[in-house]
């Protein structure tokens, strides 16, 4: 009998988790109504919920969502083209890998988003700045995971390819790439997450673009319920995005 069959159903616990959130919101509402907490600091949760339809209708949330998605798609395209190609090059040329892998690791640890004023100077206050930062933020993960995936191909598979006298191109297309695809996808997903965080963050910081700009605009108008509603919307959009990419990754691993 395995552990899974012995485990209790997770649903009561999940209900407690959801219940705790609802209870917390109810407590905040009660404290605000009782005047214990200042309404100019935290708006009534009921006002925040009521503000959601207004924000969606009046602030063109759909258009903003499309705009952020477009920026994401451009960053994703660049990541797939440049990141995977760079990872393949590092795998192909071992000396290049030995020389650059540590640098790429360090690049991954660098707070690239802090250089957004530099990108503003180069690309202007435009979507290109946002896409470029998203791309740079996601690039190390894609390169490193592509190299890792190709390097972890089982030696027996490579030997099978050799015994069939495959050309290097065939070896790559028929053996290395299919074997490395799950790991490459993990890197691509990580890269997209970093890109998404930076894209929304920079939209907020430079007050341009889609969902990130929405929060900035609401905050600058001192529309408290609107600000909280916009944050809630961005968090929900992020959760949806991570959930979708997670499902795609699981699907890719199965196939």
């Amino acid at each position, binding site marked *: 009998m395995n552990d899974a069959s012995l485990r209790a159903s997770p649903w009561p616990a999940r209900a407690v988790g959801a219940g705790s959130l609802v209870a917390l919101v109810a407590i905040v509402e009660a404290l605000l109504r009782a005047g214990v907490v200042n309404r100019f600091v935290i708006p009534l949760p009921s006002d925040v919920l009521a503000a959601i339809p207004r924000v969606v209708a009046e602030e063109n949330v759909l258009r903003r969502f499309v705009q952020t998605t477009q920026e994401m798609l451009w960053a994703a395209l660049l990541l797939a083209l440049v990141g995977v190609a760079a990872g393949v090059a590092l795998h192909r040329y*071992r000396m290049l890998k*030995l020389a650059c892998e540590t640098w790429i690791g360090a690049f991954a640890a660098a707070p690239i988003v802090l250089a957004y004023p530099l990108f503003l*100077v180069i690309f202007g206050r435009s979507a290109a700045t946002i896409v470029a930062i998203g791309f740079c933020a996601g690039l190390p993960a894609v390169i490193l995971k592509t190299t890792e995936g190709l390097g972890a191909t089982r030696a027996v598979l490579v030997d099978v390819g050799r015994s069939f006298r495959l050309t290097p191109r065939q070896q790559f297309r028929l053996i290395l790439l299919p074997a490395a695809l799950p790991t490459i996808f993990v890197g691509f997903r990580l890269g997209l997450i970093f890109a998404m965080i930076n894209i929304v963050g920079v939209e907020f910081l430079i007050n341009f673009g889609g969902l990130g700009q929405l929060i900035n605009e609401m905050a600058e108008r001192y529309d408290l319920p609107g600000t909280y509603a916009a944050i809630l919307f961005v968090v929900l959009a992020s959760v949806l995005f991570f959930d979708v990419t997670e499902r795609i990754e699981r699907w890719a691993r199965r196939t």
Partner: protein
Amino acid sequence: MGATDLTPAAAATGSDAGDPTRRQVLALRAAIVVALLVAWEAVSASGLLFRDVVPSLRSIAAALMRVLAAPEFYGHLGASASEVAAGLAVGGALGLLAGVVIGANRFAADAYEALIHYLGPTPKIVFFPVMIMWFGVGAGSKVAMAAISCFFPIAISAAAGMRAIDGVLIRVGRSFGARPWQMATKIYLPAMRAPVRNGLRLGLGVAIIGTLLAETKLSNRGVGHLVIQAYSTFDMPRMYALLIVVFVAAIGLNALIGRGERRPR
């Protein structure tokens, strides 16, 4: 540069006759650095791009010297460092506590882990307007940004570390009648050292980002404020110099924690 053997076995052992030596790798690294510097200087001198966007290396080096020689820079650096440290202390302690509880208790994990899992990767900077309202425009909101930024990676790492503790160690502790505090200090924390340090490493990086981004948005102190001030006055060499300092500090701190991680016991 020639292609090398692609088999993982050869790569792993490094025993291949064509394996590059350390000297060759260092030579390639030096060549890449020189090529990049020459390309930068050539673009700077060519006038292809707006002169101030790609300032000469000499002007960046001079600006770096000026930044490092200015006493007020260290005041700003100290302000940012103290905000990051305070945020890391608060967010790290809460993250460690949450991670230990979630890692030790299946029910708590089922109830709350999904929240941490999904909120973890959301862009934290979007919470900055709320933090300003709660903690003001001063250091408090930056400390809060650092705290919420580092809470999630530390909690996730601590929970994973807690689950990975060898059951034998826990049974040994219990068989000796160890109290909860003794279990925590003698069994759990020493056994979780590696994942906690890893979480701290990730947490430090995002705490620096959270704090400095908040400083670029609204502040009159800190390195983030200096960066955005250099941008506003279009003092590009100074901005490059400040970014170099920030990048070197962030990467250096990360490497320092990483080195501790790999040091044999």
